[in-house]
């Protein structure tokens, strides 16, 4: 029995028209497949278009060429099978934590009386059971991410798209959030596409690590399988010998791209 691929980007190219009429190619010929139940991390230097690629998978952006297939069906409009965790704060500031989570169900037509207890259950499972009545501005950055995670997961999406979700958090909170994510993911193993600039985070979390070259016209230049055993503990796995070997191997490729990306971004500033 063959299971359909959850997300398949085939030669996807993403281009933007700049203000002065020139065309900027962000991503060139991206080929990427995420199997059902697979956790794939995309790593690349700043400005390489990894978030762009994620937005294409979400249907927020249309590729200029190539195709996007979700469970073997071409994607039209927004990807309704996917839950998206944003890097920036995306909670509704005028709703309490509980209402923010419940809205995911209410949109689908679940009556409020049924949505609220479920939302409370999800808040509890992300460790915020006691914070249901708080508004987002009364929560810390890490707590807001937990609410956002619950908001996405309550809809039970088949695919999780995550755009540097823990980027704005401090190092310790990131690790705690990483473990929380792995715990929740372990329960039903959704397909995950996780964008980050942090290679250690990528290896610790994912089944596969995909490396992108520096932009513009960035490409996927490497694809590694991470065979560290699951379930993993992010704190422990970093001490593993295999983890170090893999990190060294991937970093040798990534380093050049990071330097290139850095050089380009400083040149671009000088040119302006």
């Amino acid at each position: 029995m063959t299971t359909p691929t959850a997300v398949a980007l085939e030669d996807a190219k993403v281009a933007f028209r700049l203000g002065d009429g020139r065309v900027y190619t962000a991503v060139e010929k991206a080929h990427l497949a995420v199997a059902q139940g697979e956790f794939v991390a995309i790593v690349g230097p700043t400005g390489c278009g990894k978030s762009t690629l994620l937005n294409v998978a979400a249907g927020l952006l249309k590729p200029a060429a190539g195709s996007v297939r979700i469970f073997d069906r071409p994607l039209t409009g927004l990807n309704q099978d996917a839950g998206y965790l944003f890097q920036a704060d995306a909670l509704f500031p005028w709703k309490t934590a509980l209402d923010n989570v419940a809205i995911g169900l209410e949109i689908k037509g679940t009556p409020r009386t049924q949505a609220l207890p479920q939302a409370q259950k999800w808040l509890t499972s992300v460790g915020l059971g006691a914070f249901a009545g708080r508004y987002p501005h009364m929560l810390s950055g890490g707590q807001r991410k937990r609410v956002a995670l619950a908001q996405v997961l309550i809809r039970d999406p088949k695919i999780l798209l995550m755009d540097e979700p823990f980027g704005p958090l401090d190092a310790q909170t990131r690790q705690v959030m990483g473990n929380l994510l792995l715990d929740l993911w372990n329960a039903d193993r959704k397909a995950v596409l996780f964008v980050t600039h942090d290679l250690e985070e990528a290896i610790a979390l994912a089944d596969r690590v995909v490396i992108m070259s520096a932009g513009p016209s960035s490409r996927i230049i490497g694809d590694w399988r991470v065979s560290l055993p699951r379930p993993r503990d992010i704190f422990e796995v970093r001490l593993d010998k295999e983890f170090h070997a893999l990190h060294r191997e991937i970093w040798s490729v990534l380093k050049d791209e990071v330097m290139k990306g850095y050089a380009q971004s400083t040149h671009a500033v000088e040119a302006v």
Partner: protein
Amino acid sequence: MSRPTLFALQVLVAVVCIVLWQVLSTVPVFGKILLPPFFFSNPFDVFSQIVKWFASGVIWKHLGITLAESILAFVIGSLGGVLVGFWFARQPLVAAVFDPYVKMVNALPRVVLAPIFALWLGLGIWSKVALGVTLVFFIVFFNVYQGVKEVSRTVLDNGRMLGMSERQLMQHVYWPSALSWMFSSLHTSVGFAVVGAVVGEYLGSAAGLGYLIQQAEGVFDVAGVFAGMFVLSAFVILIDFGVTLVERRLLVWRPTALDGRG
């Protein structure tokens, strides 16, 4: 500073001002009264005028009329502002077409419209309401327009990815955002509703606080003018206090609504 101390200091300012006013308008300094009673009256006369108004009950009718005009102006102006603001923000073409006219009308000092409104709507309350509406409408309109336009891109994308339809986006994203902008200008728009009413009354009417002040001025009754001003200030402060209560209730989710007031 503790609350009682602050309050004591605030009262002290009022006491000093009133005492200075009373002394300078009744006791000659170097053989000359610095604040001639004809132009400045004195606190005692002003106070007795206010007492007389309240004792005889005439003031209630005027206060009631001004309040009614302000409320009508606020409600009609806000409704119009919300509807048009929403419409313009969701239809950029409409907004672009009307843009120069909106700017033109908004640039016009609204006082010059008072005579026209008096001509069209008579000297009753509706000409004052109309003047207030022209003031309130633009404040609410600009805020709602801004509120709908400046919905955070991420929050909007999040709503879409959660599967919201256009109607649900309206209900859960655009509407609360626009309302929050509107409420943040609540003090200003309520204040302008009162301004519209009072200025309208002042320029031509048969009742209201503006009318009271204008009548006193007509007969050089300076005490009456000041008394009218004080009643008006107290009236505005009371309304403003009410607005603050409403705002605290409606904007609990906003950090500034709570933290701004210690």
